[in-house]
């Protein structure tokens, strides 16, 4: 299928919703938000305290016992996955000339992105910091002794 490019300086003639424009805007709105979300995530997890050495189940449980970090990570998950998937879609659109392959790859991207966003959201909000039967030394200190 030949790709028809409208004369660049002519106004848009199609009447449907302009999804490409919303995608372009989304990248520029989510980008600065992601800078705040991810830079803070990196400082909290890799800089303060013992950094990477301190990260284990108890560390994650300690963070997600606080709704602040649950909402923080939830926002980061959704914005980063949509931002990343849309960026990959742009790259696929640029380099994949065969239309059926392009469509297949873009569909796969959104399917994988959607799956991970749902999985991640469930993990954040159904998470139990003190799972029954787990060894006490692996759990955060606020868990009741079993």
């Amino acid at each position: 299928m030949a790709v028809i490019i409208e004369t660049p300086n002519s106004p848009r003639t199609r009447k449907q919703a302009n999804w490409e424009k919303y995608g372009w805007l989304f990248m520029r709105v989510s980008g600065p938000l992601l800078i705040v979300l991810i830079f803070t995530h990196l400082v909290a997890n890799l800089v303060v305290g013992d950094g990477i050495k301190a990260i284990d189940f108890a560390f994650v449980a300690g963070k997600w016992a606080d709704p602040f970090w649950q909402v923080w990570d939830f926002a980061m998950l959704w914005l980063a996955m949509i931002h990343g998937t849309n960026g990959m879609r742009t790259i696929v659109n640029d380099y994949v000339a065969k239309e059926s392959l392009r469509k297949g790859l873009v569909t796969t991207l959104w399917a994988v992105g959607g799956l991970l966003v749902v999985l991640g959201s469930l993990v954040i909000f159904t998470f139990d910091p003190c799972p029954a039967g787990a060894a006490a030394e692996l759990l955060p200190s606020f868990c009741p002794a079993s």
Partner: protein
Amino acid sequence: MASIPAGTLYRGKVGMWSWVLHRITGVGIFFFLLVHVLDTALVRISPEAYNVVIESYKTPIIGISELGLVGAIIFHGLNGLRVIAVDFWSKGTKYQSLMFWAVIVITVGIVAGFAPLHLARVFGE
């Protein structure tokens, strides 16, 4: 004086290279994000499952790679701000080259500051 033929190779200077770097870092961060959502999801399986996998993030090879990941994220984020400035700021195109070098300097500076701290933890006891 005869001028040297410019040839036909596209030479976009820093505007082109920032675009190339933005794509490469973006793709790299995307694939890390997929892995990172999955490894974090292991907290829902068991503390042991999560701890076993997260230990690999503290090994020398992955520990060093994390510096590359942090650098890629900082570059991509700051260069994204530069792209926004080029799109929405009237002087954006005038200063795009200067802004690119500012992005590079800040990225290298932050990674250089973070590296000793992080590597001491990865290679320390």
